[in-house]
């Protein structure tokens, strides 16, 4: 165990930051140090974590996707609208879930076509597709705020695995989603680390030309990436609708920054080629820890976005400094060489 390298890894710094932050919040407001808080943080992190897993895959491959919340709300909202218009079984949970994921994959396929098929730079491509998706959703699917979502989805919001009620402490609820989400996280981690697809994603992030010369079909891998991210976003979108117990097409807009911040904080390099699921999970936890408990720290909640901005800034500054230190140590010149 090389302890020095272990301490330098961003995941360790993150765990440290989470512990320090939790202690500070706990000292200022002892009611924070309870099981209820831990369960609450989990509940508020669910949707972001699923988005973040998708974004992680994209960032590791060297791209960036800002259309994922739009895909999410498009899929979720459309699934609910379809259930209402086609008068499908309102008690079912599988139907909206599957519908949302399928819509998400379809939208992801559009991204795949534009990015892998035409080769347009990922930021501009997803900026464009986000506009198209949002415009189409608001024009063709509807703009109505749906407060009465199908019964099955609505009941799912309160489907708790563990429920600890006590007269002295606040209600502690652990949603049943912890089981599938944990499985999903482990699954994505396995996908990234132990399958050819995962290795191809990392290879793509290390350099698309080099990956191509290795014999990896970059276009096919990219297409799969964006369709996978689309499906994950669709899944996150329908869960969002369910947990919020309402469907509004204006939701989730603007949340891409929080998710990207979480992934970058988790150690994923925006240049591609590096990033871990564990780091992403920690990043999401940290962001939600801060956002949810600013009030307990004595800061009004209108500073939430600024707090995320500061975190993101710290994260990228640290990344940039470590990157430049690494480059100086190298003796062979590379593309990212910093000419001092």
């Amino acid at each position, binding site marked *: 165990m090389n302890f020095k390298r272990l301490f330098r890894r961003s995941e360790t710094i993150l765990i440290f930051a989470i512990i320090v932050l939790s202690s500070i919040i706990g000292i200022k407001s002892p009611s924070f140090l309870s099981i209820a808080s831990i369960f609450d943080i989990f509940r508020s992190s669910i949707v972001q974590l699923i988005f973040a897993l998708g974004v992680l895959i994209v960032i590791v491959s060297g791209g*960036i996707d800002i259309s994922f919340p739009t895909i999410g709300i498009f899929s979720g909202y459309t699934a609910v609208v379809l259930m209402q218009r086609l008068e499908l079984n309102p008690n079912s949970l599988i139907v909206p879930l599957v519908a949302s994921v399928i819509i998400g994959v379809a939208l992801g396929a559009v991204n795949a076509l*534009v990015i892998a098929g*035409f*080769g*347009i*730079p990922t*930021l*501009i*491509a997803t*900026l*464009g*597709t*986000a*506009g*198209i*998706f*949002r*415009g*189409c959703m*608001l*024009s063709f699917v509807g703009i109505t705020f749906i407060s009465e979502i199908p019964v099955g989805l609505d009941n799912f919001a309160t489907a708790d695995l563990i429920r600890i009620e006590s007269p002295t402490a606040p209600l502690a609820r652990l949603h049943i989603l912890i089981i599938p989400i944990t499985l999903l996280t482990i699954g994505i981690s396995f996908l990234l680390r132990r399958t050819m697809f995962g290795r191809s994603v990392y290879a793509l992030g290390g350099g698309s030309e080099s990956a191509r010369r290795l014999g990896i079909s970059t276009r096919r891998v990219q297409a799969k990436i964006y369709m996978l991210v689309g499906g994950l976003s669709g899944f996150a979108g329908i869960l969002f609708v369910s947990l919020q117990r309402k469907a509004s097409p204006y939701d989730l807009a*603007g949340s891409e*920054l929080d998710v*990207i*911040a979480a992934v*970058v904080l988790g150690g994923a390099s*925006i*240049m591609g080629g590096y990033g871990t699921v564990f780091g992403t999970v920690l990043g999401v936890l940290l962001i939600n820890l801060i956002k949810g408990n600013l009030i307990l720290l004595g800061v*009004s909640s*209108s*500073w*939430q*976005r*600024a*707090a*995320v*901005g*500061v975190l*993101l*800034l710290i994260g*990228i*500054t640290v*990344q*940039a*400094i470590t*990157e*430049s230190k690494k480059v100086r140590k190298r003796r062979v010149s590379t593309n*990212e060489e*910093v*000419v001092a």
Partner: protein
Amino acid sequence: MFQLVLIALFILTLFSATSRDVFFTSYNFTSMAYQIPEVAILSIAVMLSMLTGGIDLSIVAISNAAALIASYIMTHHLNAAGTTPNFWIVAACLIGILVGILCGLVNSILVALLNVTPILATLATMTLFNGIAIGLTNGKSVSGLPEQFLRLGNGTFFGLPTPFVAMIILATLVSFLINRTGLGLKVFLIGTNRKAAQYSAIADRKVIMWTYVISGCLSSIAGLVIASRTSAASPDFGASYILLAIVIVVLGGVNPSGGFGTVSGVVLATMVLQMLSSGFNALRFNQFYYLVAQGSMLIAVMVLNLVLEGRRKSRSIHQSRRT
């Protein structure tokens, strides 16, 4: 550039023909002339950062921050009569521009000195500036700006709308800067090939710093124009302007990987998109159709650029094979 003029004329005739009484009126053209400048100035700011091969996503956040601070100062010094001494209006504007320069400086430190990717750096600063604006104002907007200031945004200068004149002056200045100064030439060289520029003894980091500072300055001026026109400043205004600015810049012929772009192309593209928006409005299209149009145009233009570039490359390969 020529194709852009054609597109502009095509859109103009299309909408004038289909909606003559609403679109092809002096009222409509005047109101377009009032809305074009702020978007054009923002697009020029994006163009500058794109010329060096980067991008500035924080333009809207900077413009809102500058507008908010300037508006706050102006409303703070309102007299009982509802006017503000001219000194404070000028001071507020200057401080607003200073805010823009400072924000641009933060961007340049991140991109030029710390070598952070521009996408990520400006995403972070966008979040930060937007967050600070929301935190300072609690998400509320500042309104009730003094009348003299509003006259700037809604008045005329020798017959043309004042903001339009301001846009033309700024566009001319920036065009002069990039086409006829050493700094401008270095910007183009860095955008074309950063490594070659470094090896040619060009102080690339200093040049990139200047582009982001000027970009921030332009964004703050755009923010002041917006505040003057709408008589309000809010931390969340114009969130859709980023997509719009990038569509305009790409349509205007700027290469997203840097090295090529013209101010006149960007201004013309702004007019095209404003005509599109106004035309959709006149035809009573759902406002979200405009969003779909923006996204589709962005992708269509990028695809077209790539196809043309591929054809140009294969043609030059053929030519070199023949000789």
